[in-house]
């Protein structure tokens, strides 16, 4: 497969966008190429900020509010959580899992202070993911 021209690539992308359902739905998508789960609660364009080695938070360019996140090295994180907290297997199965459980797992396993910025951001992510009730598919391979 050869590289397509920039014009052809843009055209294909526009066709995909125009044929898509125009009603935005919050999504959490596992990407095996990055071993990451990307969560998006709103269709706004966003800028990203890493809060730690696990999570990058997405802020709306329009409102500045938290609208999503990228959870990196998901497989590794889940393996570690299940080693430290075997009871969490009840919440994190091999399959769809509520994103709030991933954020809670990080909150509970981290030694951060209750009022530091990372903790507050995680709490906001728990809140946003709970409101949207989206699920991510995790890989324990």
């Amino acid at each position: 497969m050869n590289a397509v021209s920039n014009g052809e690539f843009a055209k294909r992308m526009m066709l995909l966008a125009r044929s898509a359902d125009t009603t935005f739905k919050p999504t959490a998508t596992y990407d095996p190429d990055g071993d990451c789960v990307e969560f998006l609660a709103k269709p706004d364009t966003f800028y990203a900020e890493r809060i730690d080695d696990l999570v990058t938070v997405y802020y709306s360019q329009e409102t500045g509010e938290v609208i999503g996140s990228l959870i990196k090295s998901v497989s590794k994180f889940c393996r570690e959580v299940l080693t430290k907290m075997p009871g969490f297997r009840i919440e994190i199965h091999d399959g769809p899992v509520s994103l709030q459980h991933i954020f809670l797992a990080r909150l509970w396993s981290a030694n951060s202070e209750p009022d530091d910025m990372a903790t507050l951001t995680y709490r906001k992510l728990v809140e946003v993911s709970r409101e949207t009730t989206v699920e991510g598919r995790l890989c324990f391979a």
Partner: protein
Amino acid sequence: MADKKESRRDGLKVEAVNPVDGSTVEVFISSDRMQAVGRRSMAHAKECGFIVPMILQKPTAIFEGLRRDEDEDRDVAGWLCYCGVPPHAYHADGTQRDPFPNQVYLVFVNENKVAYNWRWEEADPNDAKLPQNHEQRFKKRAL
């Protein structure tokens, strides 16, 4: 499982600059990723369709490897972060606007030359063409 593997082979390749010698290499973007982005909004689709290839071909910098030990999964040979400042950005409805001030656009490419994530981030306050904290974050500037 077989279906998933098959779908990951679907996608398109776009050209990118090779940080080693400035030659052209091909970077793959999966069909799954394109469809997921296309479903979000016209702005997201246009970022992927227009900005991502531009950053891959005309970056202001390319970084290699992450400094933090905890990110060992990403600390493999060939993992790259392309950085640039696009000439424009998009409103949520897809209409064009000026680029977001004091922000750069990053495209992340894994060791298999797959672009798997892209986004705006805050720029370095001392150099608006580079991402914030790039010296602490990345192991090496490759370009």
